């Protein structure tokens, strides 16, 4: 008998176990071929069959070599529970099962001497969200009629850009009694209140990115919804930079400044201005942590776009050399405003945190009026790779922090001057319209969402530790990979179609929520429309408590 090796990794140490029924398996090989993590492999087992044919036991035995499918017991090729094997198996012979006894967090660190990294989902605190404790409670009735969501027109646009207080608008009264522009004002664009959040071309497969970009263009040009898409850090294909579709893209500059060389070089040939520039200071999924694109995903086209070798690309957690709001953020804003000749709004994205309101307060007092938006990102957001410890244990919920910022502006009489955009787990339950509506009532001008877009495309990950392998470059759905074979699993047209359809449905649902409160324009700050059955939530958000 072989000596038992106590330190060997077994399936029971891993987060998922493979359920396999050899009697149903036809050995077609689909599952092993489809498993991008190589977490299952064919194996030959030696089987012994004992039988007796006489009236008295005369056991005979036969040995045979039987091919079977087995789980790979390795911390490198462990099963992520993505369920692709189950999806492709014609006979329901195989599938992952969550292992409640997993020792994965311990075993992995012990054996690898490295921290665990994974895709951006928070796997702790899977409780009821604050947004789900709010309801739309002020329903217009007899004297104040509800609107008909099917027949009335709705003005569902949100501003992106620095809003001047009314007294500072460059107006003079002309001879004919009309207001005429008399000076410059910061650029402001009115866009759909749901922005497709910043996911970089390195993080997503080129087919996924193409699908999202197609959806954005289609929503704008065929559906009349001026949806904007943020590029994420990491640059934009030059062909897109020079195309007329650039006007739908918000270009992001993050701490790594990846891809900006190409953007700057393409400027003379741009025929359209971008929709905006977003300076990412932090993100909600892993606040205080930088971007992490591991070398597995740095494919040749990523190297070309970013101008980097095939190596891990780590964006620092801060903009190096920028350490105060006064001198640094403003310097950046000035340069990026100037780069596009003050025609393009420049906004900032920070992670929700205990200090966000201080940052916001500083920005609203900005005397140069150049901060075109405050994008606030809370936990539960984020799609990129990061260390698991950051994903699970840092961050701040978005709802109360957004509310704090709005109320801080209200206290100063400056609400709306820097449009508030919020994200972080919005649409986590699949109902983005409801989440967006509630956030708008609490003071957001609009919301942005990233992870939900992945789910529209067919992402199989969830917040209970399923898949979340965006960092590995082995995304089984072809969404966050640069492996050609995996990326080809994704049909960009289907991705675009799903996103377009989801947005159309969501648009209808937003109207269905605006109609009963009698509003035909966005109810920004209409917290009187919300109620909560949770007293603590009601008090914290300053909305009506009902029971």
């Amino acid at each position, binding site marked *: 008998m072989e000596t038992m090796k106590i330190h060997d990794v077994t399936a029971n140490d891993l987060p998922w176990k493979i359920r396999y029924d050899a009697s149903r398996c036809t050995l077609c090989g689909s599952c092993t071929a489809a498993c991008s993590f190589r977490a299952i492999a064919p194996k030959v087992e030696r089987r012994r069959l004992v039988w007796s044919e006489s009236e008295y036991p005369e056991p005979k035995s036969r040995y045979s070599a039987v091919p079977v499918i087995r789980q790979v017991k390795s911390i490198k090729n462990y099963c992520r529970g993505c369920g692709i094997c189950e999806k492709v198996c014609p006979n329901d012979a195989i599938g992952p099962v969550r292992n409640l006894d997993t020792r994965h967090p311990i075993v992995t660190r012990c054996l690898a001497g490295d921290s665990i990294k994974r895709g951006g989902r928070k796997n702790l605190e899977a409780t009821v969200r604050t947004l789900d404790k709010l309801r739309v409670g002020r329903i*217009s009735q007899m*004297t*104040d*009629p509800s*609107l008909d969501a099917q027949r*009335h*027109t709705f*003005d569902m*646009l949100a*501003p992106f*850009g620095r*809003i*001047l*207080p*009314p*007294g500072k*608008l460059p*107006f003079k*009264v002309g001879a004919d*009694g*009309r*207001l*005429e*522009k008399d000076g410059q*004002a910061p650029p*402001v664009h*009115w866009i759909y209140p749901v922005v497709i959040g910043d996911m970089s071309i390195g993080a997503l497969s080129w087919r996924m990115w193409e699908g999202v970009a197609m959806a954005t263009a289609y929503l704008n040009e065929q559906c009349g919804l001026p949806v904007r898409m943020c590029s994420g850090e990491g640059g934009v294909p030059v062909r897109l930079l020079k195309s007329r579709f650039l006007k739908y893209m918000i270009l992001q500059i993050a701490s790594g400044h990846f891809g900006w060389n190409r953007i700057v070089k393409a400027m003379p040939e741009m025929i359209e201005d971008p929709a905006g520039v977003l300076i990412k200071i932090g993100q909600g999924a892993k606040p205080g942590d930088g971007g992490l694109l591991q070398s597995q995903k740095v494919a040749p086209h990523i190297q070309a776009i970013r101008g980097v070798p095939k190596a891990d690309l780590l964006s620092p957690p801060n903009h190096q050399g920028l350490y105060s709001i006064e001198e640094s953020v403003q310097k950046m804003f000035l340069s990026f405003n100037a780069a596009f000749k003050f025609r393009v709004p420049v906004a900032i994205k920070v992670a929700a945190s205990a200090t966000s309101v201080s940052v916001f307060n500083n920005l609203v007092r900005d005397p140069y009026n150049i901060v075109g938006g405050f994008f606030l990102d809370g936990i539960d957001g984020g799609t990129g790779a990061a260390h698991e410890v950051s994903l699970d244990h840092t961050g701040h919920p978005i709802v109360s922090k957004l509310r704090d910022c709005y109320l801080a502006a*209200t206290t*100063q*009489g400056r*609400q*709306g001057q820097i449009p508030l955009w919020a994200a972080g787990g919005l649409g986590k339950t699949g109902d983005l319209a409801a989440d967006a509506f509630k956030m708008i009532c609490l003071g957001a001008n609009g919301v942005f969402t990233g992870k939900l877009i992945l789910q529209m495309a067919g992402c199989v990950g969830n917040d209970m530790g399923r898949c979340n392998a965006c960092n590995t470059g082995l995304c089984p759905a072809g969404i966050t990979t640069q492996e050609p074979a995996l990326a080809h699993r994704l049909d960009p047209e289907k991705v675009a179609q799903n996103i377009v359809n989801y947005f159309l449905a969501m648009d209808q649902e937003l109207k269905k929520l605006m109609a009963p*409160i*009698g*509003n*035909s*324009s966005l*109810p*920004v*700050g*209409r*917290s*009187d429309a919300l109620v909560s059955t949770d007293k603590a939530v009601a008090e914290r958000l300053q909305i009506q408590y009902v029971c």
Partner: protein
Amino acid sequence: MCRIGAIKSSDYVHPSQALLLMQSQQKGHDNSGFAMVMHDLGGIFKNYKHLPTLSLACTDEGLKLAEDILHEAGFSRVLQWVPETFHRPGLDINAMPNYVFETFNYPKQFRNASPKEKEDLLLDMRLQLRFALEEGDQGYVYSFWPDVVTLKEIGDPRDIGTYFNLWQPDDHFTAKVITAQCRQNTNYDIVRYAAHPFFLQGYTALANGENTFYLKNKEFQRKLHRGYIGFESDSQCFLYTLHYVHRELGWPLPYYKHVITPLPFEEVERREDRDELLAIRQSLTHLEINGPNTIIGVLPDNTLFTCCDAKKLRPVVVGRSDKMVVISSEVCGINEILPERDWQEDIYPNEREIVMIGQDLEVQRWRQ
């Protein structure tokens, strides 16, 4: 649903006309009050148009308090009119002990001051009086302004008219512009301040409707100007926006409509003045109104106007004769006081216009 009305006349008219205008519209509303603001005064106030008149409902103590404050500030009384009241059992009125209309001369140091300095002084005095009288519920200061008087009371409008003897026309108490409403506020607490019309620095506004953007409006307005206080009714917001747009920002009246009910983006895109309209919408989005509304307003130069919400969910009619223009929620009210007019010339304002009655009763319709 409220009923509102306004009269602008080339001759001085008595408030009995306003009561008549409102009476036929009474069916359906709760007779909970009557309030009116009179601009361009005749009768006993005719010779004091340049001096501020205080409109006050108060206790004895409140009256003393108010007069002391004004005297201390240097104001000297030149006229006092206390309307004779006729109380009898059965009248549905929740009356204050005193109703006082007093005209004052400015303090010496302000007599040669600029109009703006005087106007700010009057506002500050009114605020000071309000705060002083609020303690112990000693009284209500409705207006303190030249050529303007205000009366508000809780009760049945018929009985309020009887109590103040307002059903009997006379030459003593008249004006060329009268706005009135026969209802107390129902959305919030019943307090005298809550009754329409509302007045601030020469501006008067009254509305029939619900302001579903009340919270947005209020949160924004309370930081805009020291005079934007109270918020006893959601429609006070309309007055403050009118005051802010027209007086504080100095924008012409047509822009009031662009602020409260901005054009849909699709329409704005087709306009020549799209940049200005978008800038207005951006900066003043918190002054937008949503919900059903009809607004009647008066400007300091006695211009009268009316406009509606963007979906025209509440009615309003403008009727006119050679000597009078009347705005009313219901046409029956106009029939009452202008029975001989050509009703085919009545104007039913639409959701995208302002109907403005300027000097010499010239009626203009401005397309937004």
